[in-house]
């Protein structure tokens, strides 16, 4: 399809909305679906069909964030949001559409959880119908791609992405523009673009939500990247544990191909780009670039030493660009609104916004997108609403098995790549697990070490043996069998694993342990014993 034809599709969809703006959006992301939002949507649709006096139309839309209170239902153009909506609430809700809104199940959209958010990646999730490309087009989708392939040179795009200051959202924080430029400059007969959607951090579900709610935004980001670096084929590496995301991505690829937005001669230009899905099979280490490439090549997901980096020698030895889901999802907005707009958000070093998955012992579990540089206190206490049932928050874990725990007295820290690293944690992909006073930090450290031990691919000794030994030592501490000497050995071993492991998994595996030792050493010491098995402290 030509850009004009696509604009017409978008316009037709927009006109339909202008003609009938009364819409009820029901969240159809996995979180709400498992609270039976699918049933809610169907009941609403049948109820509305019978009521000629209420001119509303019910549609399935994307994630609205407050997963703790799903299913969420929005009412447009009134701008209302209802929480915990069950099948039984539908009659009252439908009746209220003609009169005054039901009060009891309404969300306060002025509450910090909603009002503090700045949405780029999650933008318009409450409007976009995930399974319809027309809906994405009507909400400004594929505008960036159309502009790029018809009007802009690859150099111009590289420059724009570089100036925006966007950094890799998978956790490492490598400047995206630089990565793109390296691939663009690399020589190779073929080049590839890979989207890393193997969200392995246990306790993170940001990517899942983006994949399920706006699959086209990721495809658009990938296609722009491919145009900029000169790639002709791409792979989306998705966790097999996310069946809904896989299903929607497959559908989105088919739709985009049909509309001429993927495949040969995109938008009538000379640029061609094809995307295929590859299913992950449950290996955390496949988040590492070279391990992910091995997995796409049908092998065990084991990393190899770098350099050469995938930007020079990646998939089947060709220059390959690998970015995370959230990184690609930022790209269309940057190109439509400009690098300056993006760079105006965030801090000096960390630009833009970041999506976080708030979970654990916190009232408002769910997804939030906030500008970089916001304080952890604002996120946890104001937006998250503190701990439930009168408990007090003790610490927040960021970055999953590669990150660390930040104690509550340090919550004034600014949330950006550098500050979190200084604190002994990392930004990570965006999982934020809140713990209250009932959580034992030794137990948390043991939990993550068990994870790393079992997820270690076994290729290098420091990681394979080191994580296993550290786990055993932590078990001894927990069972009150360890001495001060063991604690020293833990620290030495951590240093060894950190500095000598082959890939990021091993290098960062000691982080949860080290950070809890740094801030909660007394919890370890309380469990230590002397040579007679008597408690020391």
């Amino acid at each position, binding site marked *: 399809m030509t850009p004009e034809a696509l604009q017409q599709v978008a316009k037709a969809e927009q006109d339909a909305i202008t003609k009938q703006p009364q819409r009820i959006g029901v969240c159809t992301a996995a979180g709400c679906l498992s609270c039976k939002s699918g049933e809610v949507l169907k009941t609403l649709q049948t109820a509305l069909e019978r009521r000629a006096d209420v001119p509303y139309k019910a549609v399935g839309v994307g994630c609205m964030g407050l997963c703790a209170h799903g299913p969420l239902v929005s009412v447009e153009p009134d701008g209302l949001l209802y929480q915990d909506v069950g099948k039984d609430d539908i009659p009252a809700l439908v009746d209220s559409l003609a009169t005054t809104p039901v009060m009891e199940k309404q969300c306060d959209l002025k509450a910090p959880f909603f009002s503090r958010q700045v949405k780029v990646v999650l933008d318009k999730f409450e409007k976009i119908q995930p399974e319809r490309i027309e809906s994405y087009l009507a909400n400004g989708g594929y505008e960036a791609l159309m502009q790029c392939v018809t009007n802009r040179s690859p150099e111009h795009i590289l420059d724009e992405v570089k100036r925006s200051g966007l950094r890799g959202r998978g956790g490492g924080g490598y400047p995206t523009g630089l990565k793109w430029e390296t691939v663009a400059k690399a020589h190779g007969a073929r080049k590839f673009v890979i989207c890393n959607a193997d969200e392995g951090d246990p306790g993170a579900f940001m990517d899942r939500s983006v994949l399920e709610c706006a699959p086209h935004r990721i495809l658009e980001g990938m296609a722009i990247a491919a145009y900029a670096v000169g790639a002709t084929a791409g792979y989306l590496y998705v966790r097999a544990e996310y069946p809904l995301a896989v299903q929607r991505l497959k559908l989105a690829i088919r739709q985009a191909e049909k509309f001429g937005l993927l495949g040969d001669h995109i938008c009538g230009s000379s640029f061609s780009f094809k995307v295929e899905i590859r299913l992950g099979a449950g290996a955390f280490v496949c988040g590492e670039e070279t391990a992910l490439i091995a997995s796409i090549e049908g092998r065990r997901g084991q990393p190899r030493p770098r350099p050469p980096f995938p930007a020079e020698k990646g998939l089947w030895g060709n220059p390959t660009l690998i970015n995370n889901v959230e990184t690609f999802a930022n790209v269309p907005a940057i190109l439509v609104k400009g690098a300056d707009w993006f760079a105006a958000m965030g801090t000096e070093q960390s630009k833009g916004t970041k999506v976080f*998955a708030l979970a654990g012992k916190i009232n408002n579990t769910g997804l939030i997108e906030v500008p970089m540089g916001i304080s952890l206190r604002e996120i946890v206490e104001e937006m998250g609403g503190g701990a439930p049932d009168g408990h007090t928050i003790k610490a927040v874990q960021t970055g999953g098995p590669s990150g660390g725990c930040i104690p509550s007295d340090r919550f004034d820290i600014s949330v950006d790549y550098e500050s979190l690293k200084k604190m002994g944690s990392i930004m990570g992909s965006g999982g934020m697990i809140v713990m209250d006073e009932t959580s034992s930090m030794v137990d948390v450290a043991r939990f993550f070490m068990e994870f790393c031990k079992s997820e270690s691919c076994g290729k290098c000794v420091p990681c394979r043996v080191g994580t296993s030994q550290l786990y055993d030592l932590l078990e001894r501490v927990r069972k009150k069998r360890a001495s001060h000497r063991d604690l020293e050995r833990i620290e030495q071993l951590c240093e060894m694993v950190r500095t000598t492991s082959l890939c990021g998994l091993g290098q960062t595996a000691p982080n949860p342990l080290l950070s809890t030792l740094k801030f909660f050493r007394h919890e370890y010491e309380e469990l230590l014993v002397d040579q007679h098995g008597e408690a020391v402290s």
Partner: protein
Amino acid sequence: MNAVETNVIGDEKRWRLVEAVMRRCGYCGDALIETLHAVQETYGFIDESSMRRVADSLKLPLSKVYGVATFYHFFHLKPKGRHTCVVCMGTACYIKGADAIMQKIDDAFGVKAGETTPDDHLSVMTARCVGSCGLAPAVVVDQQVLGHIKPDQVVNHIKELES
């Protein structure tokens, strides 16, 4: 998902689904993981005879096929019971007491993670994270996610399943 132990060789009809995936990838060795996914989707698990057949078709050593099938947690080499219960062990679920759920299931049915009851009624598994952290602790029983669930409720839910 109800897996019945089958001799893959004698089940040509279902094998065609696996064959289709290999054909689409041009019987190229790179398609190994895709093919194993197809085997598991079709039969519920990956047994030795299917591994041999995949190795033959893709011209790969059996050791490589076995290596890949055992490397990834998602692949199962044993058939599952008639019902499956996956307890999420992601950080959020763990913090909110997933281990208590595991313990309660063990007490009630005598099965630990990765085990199946002797009568093939129930398989219990753990997942690294099912991505439903907003509903922690979460359990997936026969593909249905049960969120904000207490140990007793899980046991009762399983007991109510048809045998």
